[in-house]
């Protein structure tokens, strides 16, 4: 199959997935209790005003009609407007109902576009930290299956995976930021603010990478071509770095793709604890404020990112291992 046909097929599948996700989210948000117009109009709005606004916005039309309009908007790059947030992006609430003067509502796309680079930065740094931690431990464990490096990899993975991220975040903020004053912890005012939350996320991701590497490296090491490589006169380092690492990379790549997609989907707890202004914090606030257009927008954008990352991962895997088909 040619590259173009492969890409076209995967992108079509991806578009279908994104469409189904948006349909599901759109429907669910409209069948849960609570009237979004009440949020827009404010707490003291009379029912007549609520109905007037709802009718103006088409929110009393059948769900499939509303969804059709929404999809048409998406196709034109319009994810709609936040119910709650003004154009400056502040989290708001509490105005009186007849206050028609509340600032202009923010575009969902611009809110996501402002937050996504922050989360992308956090996710990339977390992946780098995770690989720095996990690669030596995982590879070492895989090269000595059953011996103490393998057990060490297992134990350290167990410890890492057992640490609740909110607890670790608070403890590290106390230690590294409050006591030692090494890095800032709360909010965002420069790249340094990404380091601590990224490290906490790395600790959370590292056990999966360590276990995947340990198992796949050990598996490759038991293959006959590794024994033959030694007979061919290759040194151990050449065997490990040229052959073992490359052959172990495919399962790792798949794992990294999934983990990275999850990070982009919003690292909710970590961004909330560190008040890090990324997609995770935006999502938490959107959910708590019942800001339906924003929740829908985030879900669609992250679903699309998930699809694209998986296509890239699959392409990369076929490049590393020519035996894999498109």
């Amino acid at each position: 199959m040619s590259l173009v046909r492969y890409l076209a097929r995967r992108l079509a599948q991806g578009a279908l997935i994104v469409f189904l996700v948006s349909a599901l989210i759109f429907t669910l948000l409209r069948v849960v209790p609570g009237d979004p117009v009440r949020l827009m109009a404010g707490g003291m709005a009379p029912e007549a005003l609520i109905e007037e606004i709802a009718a103006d916005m088409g929110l009393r039309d059948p769900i499939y009609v509303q969804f059709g309009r929404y999809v048409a908007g998406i196709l034109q790059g319009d994810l709609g407007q936040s119910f709650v947030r003004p154009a400056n992006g502040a989290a708001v609430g509490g105005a009186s109902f007849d206050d028609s003067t509340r600032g202009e509502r923010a575009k969902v796309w611009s809110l996501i576009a402002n937050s996504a680079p922050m989360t992308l930065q956090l996710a990339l740094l977390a992946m780098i930290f995770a690989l720095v931690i996990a690669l030596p431990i995982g590879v070492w464990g895989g090269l000595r299956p059953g011996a103490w490096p393998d057990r060490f990899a297992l134990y350290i993975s167990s410890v890492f995976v057992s640490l609740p991220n909110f607890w670790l975040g608070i403890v590290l903020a106390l230690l590294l930021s409050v006591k030692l004053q090494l890095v800032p912890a709360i909010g965002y005012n420069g790249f340094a603010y990404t380091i601590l939350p990224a490290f906490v996320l790395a600790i959370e991701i590292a056990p999966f990478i360590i276990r995947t590497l340990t198992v796949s490296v050990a598996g490759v090491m038991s293959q006959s071509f590794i024994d033959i490589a030694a007979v061919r006169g290759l040194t151990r380092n050449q065997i490990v770095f040229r052959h073992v690492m490359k052959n172990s990379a495919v399962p790792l790549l798949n794992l990294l793709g999934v983990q990275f997609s999850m990070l982009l989907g919003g690292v909710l707890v970590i961004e909330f604890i560190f008040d890090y202004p990324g997609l995770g914090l935006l999502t938490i606030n959107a959910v708590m404020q019942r800001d339906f257009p924003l929740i829908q927008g985030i879900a669609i954008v992250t679903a699309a990112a998930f699809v694209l990352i998986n296509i890239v991962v699959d392409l990369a895997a076929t490049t590393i291992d020519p035996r894999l088909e498109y």
Partner: protein
Amino acid sequence: MDRRTFLRNSAMAGLGVGAVQLNTSLLVGPAMAQASRPLVFLSAENITGNWDPMAHTTLSQFNIEGFVMGFLTRAPMMPENPDEVVYELATELNLLDATHLEIKLREGVTFHDGEPFSAKDVKATFEYGAQPERARQVYPGFADTFEVTTPDDYTVIVDTTKGGYGAAMFIFLASYLPILSTKDIAGGPQGVLNQRLNGTGPFKFVEQRGNDTVMEAFPDYFRGAPQIPGVTFSYVGDATTRMLSLMNGQADVIERLEPEQVDTLSKQDDIVLNRAVSVENKYLWFRCSKPPFDNPLVRKAAAHAIDRSLILEIMGTAGEPSSNFVSPIKFGYADLDNYPEYDPEECQRLLAEAGYPGGDGLPDLEYITSTGFYPKTKEYGEVITALLQEQGFPVTLNVMETAAWNERLYDRPGGGPGHMIDCGWTSASPEPDLVLRTHFHSTSKRICGIEDAEIDAALDEERDAPDLEARRESLQTNLMPMLADKVPAYSLFTSVLMHGVRADVQDLFIYPDGTADASRTTMS
């Protein structure tokens, strides 16, 4: 193109895009090495999205206005000198007779947009703030109950003859109402007023950047330019996050400390705690316009089901006992003899009298509270829920994030959401009507939605009293006991405002309503 070329090109394009997006300020600006920086104030509450000071009753926005706006007077309301008045934009308040108040104004003051301050701004502010649709100023009466004249640029006369109440009511209002510019008011509620703040205070509003309100020092402030370059006021919803920010020096002031945070922070040498009995009481508001709390017997039964000593145990240092509908530092406060206390037998008697013996026949009740803003609301909410359930009230507690709770707070036609809701009320003035009239007069009834002719008459009577002593007597012997009998809301305790402040922040004055004066503040 083969797959390797495709991947290589894609990766290069991705790196190119990423390089544009990534923030590399780490290389040029270490985050913790800033010599002259603004005061960072972390707020527990979100703002409203409308900067018009008359369009909201939201505390966090009051706090921002405290930095930006000018007031005729300020009332520090310190326990050792509760009547102290600090003149700000006013230089004199003279009661000419029972219905005429003369206000002399300071000369040489300018707004942040360069417009000079004069009597016309005070007149426009009083008249604009007293419009029925404006949320803030519901006292002493709407704009058709008084007249404001300006004999010269720096004199204002308030005439309350039409309203039939005393002009002295405007004395307390002077420390509550921020003075707006006539030019801004002329643009109406949909003009510049809702887009930005423009005042005469020590700090100038610059912009709202996400959840950060950015203010910078106003060099032409009439008392001299502030020492610090500005104030950044940020909404951070999580109490632990706020505390960590204070401890690592990223924040200079945090508000609404939880009692256990007080224990932690009191052990820190570099942090000072600011404790003040506030003008705020915390209330359990009943939705009085719909069943079953449209029946005063049921409201009173609910009040007798609640053991406030248990709530105060939970509040620890963050609460003070009080038995009235206003804080002890408000004018007219007295412990009320008939204030409902914990009495299960009386609760059952009242329930039976109301037709709900043992709670039988009561509909399912929703009690809404917030988390993350006021201390311990969830914890004492659970206690209240359990106590009410014990007496047969079928109550469910609904704990909401601050912004979502805020949207459900106010009364609306047919009654506000739920049946009970938790909220505090505060105002930077000793004036009790900023609580009582705001909430219990049928022209306002902000949260509870009560419409009761007897309460209206009692409120009008104390407002119209000829002098302060007569007013105090009317409050203490008529209105307040009547409220204790009809219980449109149940005041649980008086809040103690606990702020954590970095020790290097000097001369920051925090008022009992939570607003702060940073005009003389220095930071080492």
